[in-house]
C-alpha cells in the first residue's frame, strides 16, 4: 500500500470516528431552576414515565441507573418500580402517599416526550495528489499527472429521543429544577441510559439542587 493510500485510509477512519462520536450522546437543550429554592435534596424518589403503562424493562433500567448515580453522589434515592406494581400509571395522590411512606423529600420524574429519526450527510472531500510525489524526488520536476484520493460521502441515520426531567419538592409539589434533553444514538437506546443519566446528574449538580 502506498503512503498516500495509507494517509487517505487513516484520514477516512479518523473523520468517520469523529463524526460518529460528535453526534452521539445527550445534550440538555433547555434548563430551568427555581431561584427561590435554596435547599438540597436528601432523598429522591425516582419515577420514569416512558410508556403509558408501567412495564418492567427500560423503566427499571432508567430508575436503577438514577438511583445508582444519586447514591454515588451521596444522595439517598428509591426507584418507583419497587413500590408500584406493573400496570397503569399511578395517580399523583398515590405517588405522594408512597413518597411520604419512603421518606423522600424530592421526586424526580423522567418523561419521554418524543422519538424522531434523522439523517446526517457529509459530502465527499477530494484530494488530488500528484502521482510519484512520494517515490522519487528526481521525478518531481517532471510530473504532469495527479490521482484523486478522497473521503467518501458519509451518510447515516440516527434516532433522536427528547425527554424532560423534573425535580419536584415533595412537601409543596412544586418543581425546583427541570431540563429538556435530546439524545442521539444509533445502536439501540438502552446503551444511552448511563450517559443520559450522567448528563442529567451533571445538570442537577451544577444547579446545586443535590449534593
Amino acid at each position, binding site marked *: 500500500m502506498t503512503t498516500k493510500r495509507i494517509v487517505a485510509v487513516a484520514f477516512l477512519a479518523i473523520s468517520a470516528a469523529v463524526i460518529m462520536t460528535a453526534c452521539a450522546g445527550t*445534550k440538555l437543550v433547555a434548563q*430551568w431552576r427555581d431561584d427561590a429554592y435554596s435547599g438540597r435534596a436528601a432523598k429522591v424518589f425516582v419515577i420514569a414515565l416512558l410508556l403509558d403503562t408501567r412495564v418492567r424493562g427500560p423503566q427499571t433500567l432508567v430508575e436503577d441507573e438514577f438511583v445508582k448515580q444519586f447514591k454515588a453522589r451521596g444522595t439517598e434515592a428509591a426507584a418507583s418500580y419497587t413500590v408500584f406494581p406493573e400496570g397503569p400509571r399511578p395517580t399523583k395522590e398515590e405517588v405522594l402517599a408512597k413518597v411520604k411512606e419512603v421518606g423522600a423529600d424530592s421526586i424526580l420524574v423522567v418523561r419521554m416526550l418524543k422519538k424522531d429519526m434523522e439523517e446526517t450527510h457529509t459530502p465527499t472531500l477530494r*484530494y*488530488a495528489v*500528484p502521482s510519484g510525489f512520494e517515490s522519487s524526488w528526481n521525478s*518531481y*520536476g517532471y510530473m504532469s499527472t495527479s490521482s484523486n484520493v478522497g473521503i467518501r460521502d458519509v451518510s447515516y441515520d440516527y434516532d433522536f429521543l427528547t425527554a424532560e426531567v423534573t425535580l419536584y419538592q415533595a412537601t409543596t409539589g412544586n418543581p425546583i429544577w427541570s431540563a*429538556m434533553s435530546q439524545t442521539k444514538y444509533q445502536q439501540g437506546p438502552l446503551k444511552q441510559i448511563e450517559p443520559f443519566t450522567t448528563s442529567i446528574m451533571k445538570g442537577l449538580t451544577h444547579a446545586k439542587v443535590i449534593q
Partner: protein
Amino acid sequence: MQRSFNRRVLNALVVLLPAVCLALSGCAATKVTQVWRDESYRPVKLKSVLVIALAEVPTVQREIESRFAKQFQDRGITVTEGFRILSADQRNAPDARDVVAAKVRELGVDSVLIIERDSGRTETAYIPGMTIVHGTGYGMGGGGTAVVASSQPMAPTTQGYEHTNKFFGMQTQLYDAGTGKIIWFVRTETRMSGPLQEEIKPYVADVSARLFGERFF
C-alpha cells in the same frame, strides 16, 4: 510620519466601523418583524404583571417566564410567573381564558404578558463547491523546479452542499388586566444557532428592552 500613520488609521476606522455595525446588526439572532401599540392607551404606570408563556414543554415555559420575571423584578415591578399559579391542565383547558381572568382578579395584578409560539420557517442556502488550486512546487525553492511544475489542483476540493437555517417565531402580547384589551404586541423571529436555552436568553432580553422602551411600566 506619525501624522501620516494616524491619518491612515483614522481612514481605516471610518471605513471599517460602519461595516462592523452593519455586520453585527445583520447577525442579530432575534429580529422584530411586527410591532404595534394602542396609541389611545394612556395608563397610569403599570405596577404588577402576570407572565404566561404558552410553550409545549414545561421546562421551556418556566425558563421563559422566569427570565421575563427577572427583567421585571430588576425594575421593581411586582411579577408572578404563570407556572406558579396555573397547572398544565388549567392552561390547556378550553376555559383557560376564564381561569386566567379569575387568577388575575385573585392576584390583583394590573397587566398580563402572554408569550406564545408563532409560525416558524426554514431557509435553505446552497454553498457551492470549492477548489483551491496552486502551482505544485511553488515555494519549494530548488532551482528550476518551480518553473516546470504543473498547476494540478493540490487540495482540497469540496462538494457543494445545502445549509438549512431554522427560525422560530414568537408573539409577545401585553394586556391591560382591567379592560382585558391588548395594549402592545410584538412579533419576532429568532434564528436557531444552538441549543434552545441559548436562544431564550437573548430573545427575552431583546423583547424586554423594547417593552420597557414603551414606558408602560
